[in-house]
């Protein structure tokens, strides 16, 4: 009933507007004006609004930078991130003046040259010199940007140093699991056909290198100042491992291993001081649409001193010791996110099926 009333009111409102416009049009027609013809007054009014609008737009941009700038990511927490940030700043310094220049010209021309009957536009259709200028100048600027950008890219994607710590990150709907190599510093083989609920990464029990591997959920710990190479896996759909504070992102692709290496340079403790936020934690987010709880597929990252890191890792059970993942295996997502409907049933369904199947696989 209420909906019907709302619909009626809307229809009435439209009819009233239509009538008002009609009356308005008829009255302007009586005055001898055409409601479609652009008059001298129109050109002046619109040109005035135009110049005010462009200036307000530029003011809004400045306001945004001032008001929201402090909400942006803090300084990079990784070594390569500094290079990326430098390139980013340089790029901003190139494109911002272009942005302001083009808009100021638009506003100036838009107002200065609005239509006056007594004026005539200049018949100026071509100038090789001008066109040459604005082809070559952007070419030079962009070539330098390309060269600089590619040098950073080559640095970032170069091979990791030999003494890097290798950590595997496994993505699935909707959580992350990490695997650290144990004392032998070698990760054992794994495969998706070996997955059970007790062995969610499908680590091969036959590979001797597996036995001292450590499987960790909930929190990812990294030592400061050491090169870390991540190997990414996914067992279901595409995911993307995004660690914004470290300027690191790489897709996790089923059927393929991808990698990214970095040197974390700021510990969590230091970053808490820098940001003035005692609750601050580095984040690992999923950044490739992966399903209902995509928005909550996260893991905290703790960067700490090498000693603390070693102590933390030593405390974890080895894969051989326990076929069950460590204590931190709190159901990360499903419980927290009250996902209603099919997907929740689906996710729960998955785990149930896994549990049922577990005995059979022994």
């Amino acid at each position: 009933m209420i909906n019907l009333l709302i619909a009626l009111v809307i229809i009435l409102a439209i009819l009233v507007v239509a009538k008002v416009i009609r009356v308005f049009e008829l009255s302007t027609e009586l005055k001898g004006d055409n409601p479609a013809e652009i008059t001298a007054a129109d050109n002046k009014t619109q040109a005035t609004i135009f110049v005010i609008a462009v200036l307000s737009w530029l003011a809004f941009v400045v306001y945004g930078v001032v008001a929201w700038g402090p909400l942006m990511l803090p300084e990079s927490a990784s070594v390569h991130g500094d290079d990326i940030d430098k390139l980013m700043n340089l790029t901003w310094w190139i494109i911002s003046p272009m942005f302001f220049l083009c808009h100021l010209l638009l506003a100036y021309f838009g107002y200065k040259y609005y239509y006056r009957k007594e004026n005539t536009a200049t018949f100026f259709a071509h100038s090789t010199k001008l066109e040459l200028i604005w082809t070559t100048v952007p070419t030079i600027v962009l070539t330098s940007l390309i060269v600089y950008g590619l040098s950073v890219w080559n640095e970032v994607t170069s091979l990791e140093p030999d003494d890097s710590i290798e950590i595997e990150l496994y993505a699935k709907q909707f959580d992350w699991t990490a695997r650290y190599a144990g004392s032998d510093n070698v990760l054992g083989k794994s495969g998706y056909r070996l997955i059970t609920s007790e062995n969610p990464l499908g680590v091969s029990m036959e590979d001797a290198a597996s036995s001292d591997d450590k499987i960790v959920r909930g929190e990812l710990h990294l030592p400061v100042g050491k090169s870390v190479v991540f190997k990414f896996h996914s067992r279901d759909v595409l995911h993307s491992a995004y660690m914004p504070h470290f300027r690191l992102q790489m897709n996790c692709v089923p059927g393929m291993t991808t990698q990214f290496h970095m040197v974390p340079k700021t510990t969590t403790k230091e970053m808490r001081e820098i940001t003035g936020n005692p609750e601050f934690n580095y984040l690992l987010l999923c950044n490739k649409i992966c399903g209902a709880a995509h928005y909550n597929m996260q893991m905290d990252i703790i960067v700490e001193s090498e000693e603390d890191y070693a102590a933390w890792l030593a405390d974890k059970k080895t894969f051989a010791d326990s076929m069950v993942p460590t204590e931190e295996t709190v159901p990360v997502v499903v419980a927290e996110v009250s996902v209603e409907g099919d997907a929740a049933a689906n996710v729960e369904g998955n785990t149930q099926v896994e549990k049922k199947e577990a005995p059979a696989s022994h």
Partner: protein
Amino acid sequence: MSDHAEHAEHAHHHHGKPDFWTHYVFSQDHKMISKQFLITAIIMGFVGMGLSMLFRLQLGWPGESFKVLELLLGDWAKDGVLDPNMYLALVTIHGTILVFMVLTGGLTGTFANLLIPLQIGARDMASGFLNMLSYWFFLASSVIMVASLFIETGPASAGWTVYPPLSALPEAIPGSGLGMTLWLVSIALFIVSSLLGGLNYIVTIVNLRTKGMSMGRLPLTMWAILITAILGVLSFPVLLSAALLLIFDRSFGTSFYLSDIFIGGQALEHTGGSPILYEHLFWFLGHPEVYIILLPALGISSEIISTNARKPIFGYKAMVGSMLAIAFLSFIVWGHHMFLTGMNPFLGSVFTFTTLLVAIPSAVKVFNYLTTLWKGNIVYTPAMLFAIGLVSTFVTGGLTGIILGDSALDINVHDTYFVVAHFHIVMGASAIFGMFAGVYHWFPKMFGKMMNKKLGYAHFWLTVISVYGVFFPMHFIGLAGVPRRYYSNEAFPLFESLQDINVSISLFALLGSVAQFMFAFNFFYSIFRGTKASKNPWRSNALEWTTEINPGHGNWEGPIPTVYRWAYDYSKPGAQEDFIPQNVPLQPGEEEFH
């Protein structure tokens, strides 16, 4: 005389009376087909916009209960709270409808059909029948896409790019069931429509130009549409193959895109495929698609800016050349969507190089627009405002492309709100501004009536305010590290401070959508009640304004006019008026410019 009349009478009978069905529905007249495309696109535009309003409610006020959501979505918004799966579905269908149905089918379908025969001087398109089929495939595709909103498992929900395995496995997300099948069917039909239309556009522009209409005298709209059609014909088949292989993987157990998957408690049998293959195929269309959307808008704005600045377009040849350069480059930049897929970093370098080159022809275009305005005599029609608005959005959005196209910088902004801001401004807003400019400008040609200018002005200002109000702050959300396609940021204390920005974005979005109702009202009201148009209301040079006010099937009652000059002789020294239409012969001693 009577013999002639008798003959005409006979011919009339022979073809059958142009009744309602042949005139309005199964029409083969390019002008009617253009109106069909436009009105379908307006309806689809409102559907797409409506979907974005629903998810903006959730993003502005996450978890809050909205009666309207429950009313419209039923079980997908129990107690008025949007379901996360439905959120993804809304985002997916919003993107699909806007990219394909509105800005590809709607924009090109409307203006290619309306303008090609009228601007090159032809009676109709090369094949009226293919043209009619092109519309009907488009309509079927649109209907199926909308219908998929109403099925039990929900519409496709894997994002508008529908990457497998998410789009291939109903176990992964409910939308990948029947919803995804309908999406694929709809897109396959859309591609057929696009190819039929595109081939027709190319053949018509190349073959049916009137006497004197050399390629160098074509209006820039024609160049833009020709280049767009070539892009579409070369790239859409690749999307069709991508979609077909996905259909095989989904329905016939093949493994083009799938491998090593454990889901629903079991390991799947698929081995050897790669989702990366799909991404390559998708973006081989996907990037040219960006220009398929943008180029017609750039062509339209060139025409409108020159006409209303009462000044020749600056650097005609450079404008054509830059469009050709952009079109060529668009085929070798697709990898910039895939820098982080694990693609060889060297390949990433190549794509960075080609991508940043696009900025050069784009810069040329922007400066040429600005120079066209310089020392002009600018008439502020609503169409002109939208065309200048396009220059602004093209600059604003284009510049951030220099960040996203740089692989090293892309690492941290890839798939964040920064991308959402970038492409909505440079592609979405620019193209929709071009489309609005076109509608306001050519409405008198389509319907013989004028649109109300005051509503047009209000529509422009509210739209441009809401476009920047919505999309400019998104750059900051992206730079703060917030991924796109997140149902809510509530799980992250770090993102809490950004929630106020999200509220204001949603409010601006609401304002923007209200403004679009002003447009719809003005459009439909003016069709029936608008003031009668004069023959050449904008005092334009192009050939379409030499027809009768309401041209019949065949466009010109007498012979097709001959063309003697380019379309941009505005304010030419020595001329009486500030415009000289293309069909006016050169005066003795007058030099043809270009």
